[in-house]
C-alpha cells in the first residue's frame, strides 16, 4: 500500500501560545502527536520533549534492534508496537525528570498518541486525551480511549456521552506523560486495508468539530495536507477554544492492473514505498 500523509497545527482563536506538537516521520511511517500542559511555556516544552523522545527512540531502534526496551511492553505485541510503548514510557521519564530537575517546570505534562505502520500492520501507543481515528467504509471509529475523567464516567455508565460533551470536567485527565514517575501506556495493533484513512488529533479538534463533520471532511478532501488544514479551519470557525493539531494518513491501493483483482488476496499486496499512482 502507498501511504500519503499531511499534518498541521494552529494556536486556535483563544490561546496565545501553541502547546501542541506533532511529527510526520515519513521514512519510517511513524506519526506522533502530543498536547502539552503546564504554566508559562512549559506545556510546549513537555509536548516537544514527548514527541522528540518517541521519534528518537524509534529511529534508534530501526538501526539497532537490540536497543534497550523500557516499561515492560505486553509480550503479545509485535516488535514495533513494543518499541512504540517503550518510546512513550521513556518520554514520560524524560518529562518527569526534567520537571524534577527544573522546579519551575513542576506540573508540566503532555498527552501522546503515536501510530507506526509496517506494511499492513498498525501499531498504536497512547496516553491522554488526544485521539486516533480510523475512517473505513465510511465509518469513523476512535482507536484510542480517552484517559479523561468524563470518558471514564461514560464507560462506567455514570453519565451519557452527550452529558460528557457538556461537562465542565472535560479537561481533567486521569493519565498523562510527565506527572508521575511511571505511566501505563495503552497499546494496540490493527490490520490496515487500502482506502483506510487514519486521523491523529488533539482535543482542540474533537471538542470543536463533530464526528460526522470529521468523517465528511476526510471523505471529501482526498489530499491529506488539505484535509488537515480544512479540519483546523472548521475548528477555528466553531470557536477554536484550544490549540488544534491534525495528522491525516491515507492508505492507497497500488495499481497492479486488472489481473490483480482475480488473485486471491489481491487487495492486500502491501509495500511501504510504492511508486505507482493510486487507484
Amino acid at each position, binding site marked *: 500500500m502507498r501511504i500519503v500523509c499531511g499534518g498541521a497545527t494552529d494556536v486556535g482563536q483563544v490561546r496565545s501560545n501553541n502547546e501542541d506538537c506533532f511529527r510526520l516521520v515519513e521514512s519510517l511511517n511513524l506519526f506522533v502527536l502530543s498536547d502539552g500542559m503546564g504554566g508559562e511555556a512549559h506545556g510546549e516544552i513537555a509536548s516537544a520533549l514527548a514527541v522528540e523522545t518517541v521519534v528518537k527512540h524509534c529511529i534508534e531502534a530501526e538501526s539497532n534492534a537490540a536497543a534497550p526496551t523500557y516499561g515492560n511492553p505486553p509480550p503479545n505485541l509485535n516488535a514495533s508496537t513494543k518499541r512504540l510503548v517503550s518510546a512513550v514510557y521513556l518520554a514520560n521519564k524524560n518529562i518527569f525528570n526534567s520537571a524534577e530537575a527544573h522546579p519551575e517546570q513542576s506540573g508540566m505534562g503532555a498527552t501522546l498518541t503515536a501510530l507506526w505502520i509496517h506494511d499492513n500492520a498498525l501499531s498504536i501507543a497512547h496516553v491522554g486525551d488526544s485521539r486516533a481515528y480510523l475512517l473505513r467504509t465510511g465509518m469513523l471509529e476512535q482507536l484510542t480511549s480517552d484517559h479523561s475523567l468524563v470518558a471514564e464516567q461514560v464507560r462506567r455508565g455514570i453519565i451519557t456521552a452527550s452529558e460528557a460533551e457538556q461537562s465542565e470536567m472535560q479537561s*481533567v485527565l486521569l493519565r498523562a506523560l510527565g506527572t508521575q514517575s511511571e505511566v501505563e501506556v495503552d497499546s494496540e495493533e490493527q490490520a490496515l486495508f487500502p482506502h483506510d484513512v487514519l486521523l491523529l488529533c488533539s482535543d482542540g479538534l474533537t471538542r470543536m468539530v463533530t464526528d460526522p463533520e470529521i468523517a465528511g471532511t476526510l471523505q471529501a478532501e482526498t489530499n491529506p495536507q488539505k484535509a488537515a488544514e480544512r479540519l483546523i479551519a472548521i475548528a477555528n470557525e466553531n470557536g477554536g477554544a484550544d490549540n488544534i493539531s491534525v495528522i491525516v494518513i491515507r492508505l492507497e491501493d497500488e495499481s497492479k492492473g486488472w489481473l490483480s483483482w482475480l488473485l486471491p488476496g489481491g487487495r492486500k499486496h502491501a509495500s511501504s514505498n510504492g511508486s505507482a499512482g493510486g487507484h
Partner: protein
Amino acid sequence: MPKLSLMFEGRTVKEVPIGSRPVTIGRSPDNDIPVDNLAVSNHHARVYYEGSRLVVEDLDSLNGTFVNDLRIERATLHDGDSIHVGKHSIKVDASHDAPMPYDMGRKAAAPSINETMVLDTKVRRDMLQQAAAMGERTQFASGRFKVPTVIVLSGKTASQEYVLTNKLTTIGKSSMATVRLTGWFKPQMAAQISQRDDGYYIGPGDKTPTVNGTPIPGPTRLNDGDIIEVSGVRMNFIFRE
C-alpha cells in the same frame, strides 16, 4: 458531625458520630454499633471516611450488607442512604459539617476548568476508588464482571471463540483479522466490531452483516446474545461472566 442512626421498626435505637476512626457494625458487643440479631455476623461491616468520601465495607458477612436494597461489598455512602444488616437499618446522616463527598454519580456544580489538568495522586485515587465502588454496585446489580466474546456457531474460522480485547475487532480473511475466516472467496475484511465508550458496535466492511437476521443499516450496537452472520459464518455475541 456526620452520624449513623441505628433504626429498628421505625425507631432510632442508637446514634453514633462518624469521626476519623471507622465505625464498626456487628453482633459482637465490641462493635461501635452492636446489633443483636442472629442474621448479623460478629463483625459485619464498617463505615469510614476515605478522603472526603464516606465508605461502607462488608467484612465478609454471612448474610450481606445492603445499601438502599442493593447488596454491596463496598460502596460510597451519601446523605440519606440506608445500610441494611439483618432486620436492622442504619440511616446515614452526612448533612452536618460533613466534608462534601465528590459525587461522580451526580453532576455537581464543578468549577469551570479551562486549563487541562491531571488529577494529583491523592484526588485521583479517591475519585477512582469512588468510581470503582460505584462500579461494584452496578456490577453487583447486573451480575459479575463480563467479558465480550464472539462464539462461532457455524462456518469456517481459525478458532471457535474470540474474546474481544481490542478497540477494533476485524472479521475477515486477512492474516491480521481477529476473527479469521478461512476458505475460498472470503473477503479480506468482511465486517468489524468496535468498542465505544457506551458498548460494542458492529459495522460493515466488504460485506453487510446481519444481526438477528436483519441486515444492519450502519454501525449497530450489539446486545448480549445477538446472532451475527457474515460471509457464511454465524456467530453469537455474548458477555461471558
